[in-house]
């Protein structure tokens, strides 16, 4: 600082961080070597990868994966809202049913549940609609025709998802200040209306980030449906590789498409976060980050 200047800016020589440079360089070298080894390996056939990457069957399977994910997630989330409200209700029967449901579906492996729904036809060979305890039956069908592997798969994924998402939704609802429901009540709003118009829109802000996580988990969990012969992405690529014995090449193909899909599906999340962040000002968000930053530096 010169004495003739009124400017009191701090002009300091920045602290050097040599180890950051060394460690970064090391990581680049190791990563580069690994990628090159894969590329140059005589055991990986790049022509097969190129051949199947945009193969019609593979793309159709990837598309089915997206459909399975979106449908299961949609059903799962709707069930989750119902379960969360049940668990928060003062009705002891509803509370117990919801708690039991969540305990059961979180307590058993998803793979087991998928296989169970696939085998439903063994336990109940036919599905009958009629009056219980009488011989009156209006409609009857073989279970395997109603619960096709696709339907069984969607049921397994959505019922399982509902159990996890229910806790996320419940946390979201609990995060909304009690005063909000009181203000709504005092204006004559009923509990259903209050939930729909006042509490849930605010809870969304808390619900969406973990639900985005669930979405990505779901996308990858669809690969479990291979065991009930749903031709989603993983099932299709492993079917192809069992014929041409290019296992690693087709794993690369599947992995590529999973990455593409998870990347694309994360875009709606930021849009939704913005939408439900309405009224919760960005300024506060920035201020919070700055506070955290300050703490880090001081």
């Amino acid at each position: 600082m010169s004495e003739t200047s009124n400017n009191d800016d701090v002009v300091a020589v920045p602290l050097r961080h040599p180890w950051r440079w060394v460690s970064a360089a090391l990581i680049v070298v190791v990563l580069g070597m690994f990628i090159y080894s894969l590329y140059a390996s005589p055991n990986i056939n790049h022509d097969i990868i190129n051949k199947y990457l945009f193969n019609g069957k593979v793309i159709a399977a990837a598309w089915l994966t997206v459909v399975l994910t979106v449908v299961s997630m949609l059903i799962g989330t709707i069930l989750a809202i119902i379960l969360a409200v049940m668990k928060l209700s003062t009705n002891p029967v509803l509370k117990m049913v919801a708690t039991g449901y969540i305990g059961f579906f979180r307590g058993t492996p998803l793979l087991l549940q998928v296989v169970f729904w696939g085998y439903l036809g063994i336990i109940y060979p036919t599905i009958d609609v009629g009056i219980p305890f009488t011989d009156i039956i209006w409609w009857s069908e073989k279970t395997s025709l109603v619960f096709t592997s696709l339907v069984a798969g969607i049921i397994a994924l959505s019922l399982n998802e509902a159990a996890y998402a229910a806790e996320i939704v419940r946390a979201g609802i609990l995060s909304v200040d009690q005063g909000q429901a009181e203000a709504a009540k005092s204006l004559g709003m009923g509990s259903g209306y209050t939930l729909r118009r006042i509490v849930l829109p605010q809870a969304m802000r808390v619900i969406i980030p973990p639900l985005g996580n669930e979405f990505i988990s779901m996308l990858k969990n669809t690969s479990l449906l291979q065991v009930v012969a749903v031709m989603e992405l993983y099932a299709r690529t492993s079917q192809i590789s069992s014929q041409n014995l290019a296992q690693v090449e087709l794993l690369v193909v599947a992995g590529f498409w999973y990455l593409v899909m998870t990347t694309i599906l994360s875009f709606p999340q930021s849009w939704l976060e913005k939408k439900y962040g309405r009224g919760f000002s960005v300024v506060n968000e920035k201020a919070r980050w700055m506070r955290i930053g300050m703490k880090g530096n001081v």
Partner: protein
Amino acid sequence: MSKQLMVDARSVRKNFGSNEVLKGITLQVEKGQVLCLLGPSGSGKSTFLRCINHLETINGGRLYVDGELMGFREKGETIHEMKPNAISMQRSEIGMVFQKFNLFPHLTALENVIEAPIGVKKISKSAATEKAMELLKSVGLSDKAGHYPSQLSGGQQQRVAIARALAMEPKLMLFDEPTSALDPELVGDVLDVMRKLAKSGMTMIVVTHEIGFAREVADRVVFMDGGVVVEDGTPTQVIDKPQNARTKAFINSVL
């Protein structure tokens, strides 16, 4: 006689577990009256206010608003719990303003005001909006209609909250320490709005620590302590010439 009473509380008792918060409150509020409830914290004044619109269920006594038993149906000697819809209907006629405003943060000021008229009273959006703009103007905030609560000061938020309650055209307004959460320089605007409302003939019950406001605006001041009404009279009687030792001590401590 009960025709002119807006609120008729008879030996109202309320307990939370084993803690008895209201130990038999008997209080009548006439239509058009402005009543200020004073008392130290924990005296039960806020709880009593919340009993009036059945945000809290009373454990004993009877509480009538405009001749109707709140939250219950009387059939001869027995009383039955009301269905939630019927309770909502009763509440929709009683406005309430909270200490922490409780505006809906995901809605703009205007949307806050029109939500209940549209959703509960089934008024058309255009009619509700027109009425809401009038109300926002009357609380001096017509230029803030499109702002979210987070963009408003505490005093502005509380004025929106008052407009929101008034949009339901209530017959009774309850204020639960409406200025306690405000910075001192913002209190005046809120009190001005309440003063105007009192002049318009609204029946108001105000839980407050603003002795000046009580003295100037209230028709009647009630001092509560330990879950009972200790003193009840005109502002001059209760604030300036309190008879009870507890009232004297409280008034001296806040003045």
